[in-house]
């Protein structure tokens, strides 16, 4: 039975519309994954050197034993954020004559095929076989391997178990997060407990007492069994799906009333962003990017050119990140929009208004960077103008060429749905254009003139916005059938 499940799983992967169909996407995906893997491999192979540098007073194995537990705590936190629950896929099997135990075993097995279960092995294996085998023999190395594997599996099922529980009760997730923060604080801030000591206590003794290896193995088995029992008791559709039922109230955004129909459209889109998982993460990303400047402005190595770069990203990340998938966000009701009385001109104006508003808020949020000099705020302002003038128009131009729908209910992490050639092409003008203007002038020591030109071009685009809207509108009428057809294809 499990084999049949696996075959179905493979089919669902290869036949899914989101498995990057175009060659370009596959290549980019492959390169990205390889790059990540390479990074981890480099860290893995030089772990001994890194540990030597970071803990010069301790011997290597002591240092290593001290960090392992930290890794697994961090791993737990990341899993809790990013790992997806393998759930709804079992729906079609629930009413077939398949034993519940078989379904659950399969569900549990399926959850193991996650990158998170690969990292610790890649990260620690080279060190174990280089250093520990050298110092304490092959047996000790394998003991370490087993312990790390068991901890990985323990983490895997623990995070899934907590996620499943928090689906039914939101407080579980808050409680768990609080516990992790508390544990972190009691180590780093209050120094009540030290994970480094605990970690060493266990792994240090593992070298002399091989029987200790049973502890993580038993832990892994126990949590697997708990997870198994929990799933068995709750294998009902409504509990598997991650839908929470709370009262949804209607809201209005009074400020937008002033803009008439365009305002209504913006209000709808704001609701879209806030009420759906994937779009919400685009907004969260925008807020995270507000800290982007700290990387560059705290370090004197980065010159003035980086301000242009940072300013564009911090005030415009929403335009780039959310705009690249337009109008795919609205794929679910695109037919409705086309048939309704909404004029496409208003539809476009609403996009401009939304971008302008979010960008403005982002600019206001970046003003505290004045701490690093007022010039930064000036550059940010220039790039804000550039973003709402030029970049919005570029993004909307490409939106007319995007035929891929987005399923709003899916999470954003590792989600390649909606990614196509459009997104890749979009990157070039967005990233290169400002530097085509800024680069040469800055090189000849006229960065101020460059900024003035950037600002003027931005303002020019804002003034001529109606002209661009007209162009985009006629362009859209040419392509709307293809867009609508693409959005209909689930």
């Amino acid at each position, binding site marked *: 039975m499990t084999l049949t499940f696996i075959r179905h799983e493979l089919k669902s992967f290869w036949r899914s519309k989101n498995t990057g169909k175009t060659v370009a996407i596959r290549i980019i995906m492959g390169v990205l994954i390889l790059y990540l893997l390479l990074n981890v491999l480099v860290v893995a192979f030089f772990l001994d050197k890194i540990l030597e540098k970071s803990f010069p007073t301790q011997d290597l194995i002591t240092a290593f034993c001290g960090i392992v537990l930290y890794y697994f705590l961090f791993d737990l936190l990341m899993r809790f954020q990013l790992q997806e629950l393998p759930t709804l896929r079992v729906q079609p099997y629930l009413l077939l004559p398949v034993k519940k135990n078989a379904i659950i075993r399969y569900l549990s097995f399926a959850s193991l095929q996650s990158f998170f279960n690969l990292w610790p092995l890649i990260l620690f294996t080279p060190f174990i076989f280089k250093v520990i085998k050298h110092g304490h023999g092959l047996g000790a190395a394998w003991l370490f391997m087993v312990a790390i594997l068991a901890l990985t599996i323990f983490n895997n099922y623990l995070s899934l178990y907590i996620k499943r529980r928090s689906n039914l009760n939101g407080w579980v997730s808050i409680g768990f997060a609080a516990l992790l923060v508390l544990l972190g604080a009691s180590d780093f801030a209050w120094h009540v407990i030290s994970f480094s000591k605990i970690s060493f206590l266990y792994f240090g003794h593992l070298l002399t007492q091989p029987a200790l290896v049973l502890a993580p193995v038993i832990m892994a088995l126990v949590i697997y069994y708990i997870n198994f029992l929990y799933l068995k008791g709750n294998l009902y559709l409504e509990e598997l799906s991650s*839908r929470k*039922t*709370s*009262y*949804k*109230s*209607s*809201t209005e955004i009074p400020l937008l009333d002033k803009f008439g*129909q365009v305002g*209504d459209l913006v209000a*709808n889109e704001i*609701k*879209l962003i806030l*009420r*759906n998982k994937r779009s919400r993460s685009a907004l969260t990303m925008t807020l995270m990017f507000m800290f982007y400047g700290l990387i560059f402005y705290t370090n004197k190595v980065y010159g003035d050119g980086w301000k242009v770069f940072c300013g564009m990203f911090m005030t415009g990340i929403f335009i780039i990140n959310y705009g690249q998938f337009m109008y795919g966000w609205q794929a*679910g*009701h*695109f*037919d*409705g929009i*086309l*048939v*309704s*009385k*909404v*004029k496409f001109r208003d539809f476009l104006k609403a996009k401009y208004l939304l971008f302008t508003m979010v960008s403005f808020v982002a600019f206001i949020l970046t003003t505290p960077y004045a701490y690093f000099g007022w010039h930064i705020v000036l550059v940010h302002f220039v790039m804000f103008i550039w973003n709402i003038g030029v970049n919005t128009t570029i993004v909307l131009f490409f939106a007319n060429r995007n035929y891929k729908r987005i399923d*709003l209910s899916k999470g954003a992490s590792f989600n390649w749905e909606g990614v196509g050639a459009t997104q890749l092409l979009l990157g070039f003008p967005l990233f290169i254009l400002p530097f085509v203007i800024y680069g040469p002038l800055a090189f000849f020591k006229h960065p101020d003139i460059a900024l003035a030109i950037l600002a003027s071009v931005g303002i020019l685009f804002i003034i001529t916005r109606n002209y661009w809207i007209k162009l985009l509108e006629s362009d859209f009428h040419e392509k709307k*059938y293809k867009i*609508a*057809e693409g959005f*209909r294809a689930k």
Partner: protein
Amino acid sequence: MIEIKDLKKIYAGVTVVDVPHLEIRKGESIGLIGNNGAGKTTLFRTILDLIRPEKGEVLSRGENVAHSENWKKYTAAYLDESFLIDYLTPEEYFYFIGGLHQQTHAYVDDHLTSLTDFFNGEILNKGKYIRDLSKGNQCKVGVAACLLQNPELLMLDEPFANIDPSTQIRLKNFLKDLNKSRGITTIVSSHDLSHVTEVCERILLMEKGKIIKDIATSSGTLRELEEYFAVS
């Protein structure tokens, strides 16, 4: 009201809609029937300018729907859930649609009160987004949004499919009333022959993209259609 000339839509070499000529006069109530794949929904979509036909044109009040957007002012349609903005609550959706037609919230509320029976207490003030409603209730939202627009042309694709018997009867009464007393042109597709023959005065029967029968409803129509669909 609607005139179709020489219309052809081809998907991957297969002609899915082929209508040389069809005229729908103002105030007519049309029932569109045919088995799955006969081309009913595709015909609806071409009339609503959602897909581009390979050949021919659709005129609404003499204007090609692909060139002018005037038809949107007097046309309301509900084909499937993709016409609904599913992350809004039904109330927000109605206010939005009403707003497009310059209707105030008070006006919309007033109109919704007249639909209390139709909603049967399942739609308003339930604290749910449209995506969390059942298919039948989503259909109610879609139909109600159409009625809210006071259209002159109303197009519904299989509206009876997911709704409960009481709502079916109410919807039939609505359709008859809209057509008789307000002269609204209605085009309704359905797989339920008795519903269509009851509501519509003119029946179009589609098969493989072609309209093969165009009959005015009479007492014998139901029998005639049942004979056509009967499997031997």
